[in-house]
């Protein structure tokens, strides 16, 4: 309890010292920012800042959730396993979202593999503390239900995107999704990792990346991708990128 009060004070001090840039700027997670002030402060009081490391596994299918994460600088891939091995990315979580929504649905076991794709900071809350806060806060419940719905739409679009769209527009979409969450034009990614995220063979990724590079949209060198033309990527991406953005904007504003 004492720790919670100390933590609340710490957060208040942090908020107070950031008034010039607006009290929200230190939060940097959109879901938390959207909460009404009281609910937000209460949630932040039980948050602890953590640094997520590249490729760290945050949840595994069927294993009870120990923590929920609200990424701030980091981002996380949701991956579906086949025969126990993660094979395909079906969702991405950055500062717009949260990992561990199953707790909001009253379910403890994680539905998907989650691994860190972009290292950086996040807020973390223990499952027990999170559930008791959730039980108290209808604002948090409402907001998370809406976010769950957005995630479901992301899954739904993934299902048809994987069915219908070619590797090139899917790669463009993936790069845009990553850029949004990496908050940077440059990020590190190997062809192997990309192939595994997109569920295609490595040669397919290499070919698609060369097409985008020749068109002057990206620069790719030794695992370092730089987005040169965001607009160009948007034109090259399948409609799923815009659809996902719209679903999010419609539900969480």
């Amino acid at each position, binding site marked *: 309890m004492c720790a919670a009060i100390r933590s609340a004070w710490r957060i208040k001090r942090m908020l107070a010292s950031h008034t010039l840039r607006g009290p929200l700027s230190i939060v940097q997670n959109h879901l938390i920012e959207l909460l009404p002030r009281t609910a937000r402060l209460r949630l932040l009081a039980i948050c602890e800042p953590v640094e997520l490391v590249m490729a760290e596994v945050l949840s595994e299918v069927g294993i009870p959730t120990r923590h929920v994460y609200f990424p701030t600088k980091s981002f996380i891939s*949701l991956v579906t396993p086949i025969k126990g091995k993660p094979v395909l990315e079906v969702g991405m979580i950055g500062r717009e979202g949260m990992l561990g929504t199953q707790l909001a649905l009253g379910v403890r076991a994680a*539905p998907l593999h989650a691994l860190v794709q972009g290292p950086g900071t996040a807020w973390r809350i223990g499952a027990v503390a999170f559930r008791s806060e959730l039980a108290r806060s209808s604002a948090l419940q409402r907001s998370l239900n809406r976010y769950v719905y957005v995630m*479901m739409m992301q899954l739904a679009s*993934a299902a*048809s995107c994987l069915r219908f769209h070619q590797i090139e527009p899917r790669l463009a979409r993936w790069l845009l999704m990553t850029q949004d969450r990496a908050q940077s034009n440059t990020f590190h990614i190997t062809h192997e990792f990309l192939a595994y995220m997109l569920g295609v063979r490595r040669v397919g990724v290499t070919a698609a990346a060369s097409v985008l590079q020749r068109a002057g949209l990206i620069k790719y060198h030794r695992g370092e991708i730089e987005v040169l033309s965001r607009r160009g990527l948007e034109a090259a991406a399948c409609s799923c990128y815009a659809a996902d953005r719209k679903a999010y904007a419609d539900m969480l504003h």
Partner: protein
Amino acid sequence: MEILSSDSVKNYLLAALPIAESQRWLPLMESVDLPLGQVLYESGTTLSHVYFPTTAIISLLYVMENGASAEIAVVGNEGIVGISLFMGGESTSSRAVVQSAGKGFRLKAQLMKDEFNRAGPVLHLLLRYTQALITQMAQTAVCNRHHSLDQQLCRWLLLSLDRLEGNQLVMTQELIANMLGVRREGVTEGALKLQHAGLIRYARGHITVLDRPGLERRSCECYAVVKKEYERLLPRTQES
């Protein structure tokens, strides 16, 4: 224990309602016929009702900008159609189509919202169902990428079979092709293979499943993953 009519307990969510909720719901529920191909809602429209299928099966399809669609989940007697309503969406971005004719119950959208906002046992039940649906959607996504049409066809038949009373599905190949997001010829070929293997009989839009264990062996793991998750999240109540 005739709280709801005996038909309504054929839907497992309705059957799992506590007595107080059943009593409140009974007068509000409307029994409906759900003919093959009927669209319960279109992508982008506001929902007027939620549906609890009893003998019908509803297919949820994600519709893309160019109009192409693929099935993201099926809902039958284990579920509810229209969860966007209580998850906070005014409209929905999927289309819900009856893929196997039958019956169900429906409830007005506003009543459903009120019920959800009571934050009682109904809310918890529906949220758990939502998690089960999420699993089905994620598994469908991965299945679309990694598994052969044959395997998907088996998965799809098994999911349907679980939601039917008998072992016969009335279904055109065109509809199946739409659900799986493939060409009709692909479905024809796949169905023929299953027929040669003695697993199904297919004649004039009637699919009869002859060998269920055979279908299970031939299906990808996605069927078992989804089934297990539903059983875990929504253990079926004692049938009355």
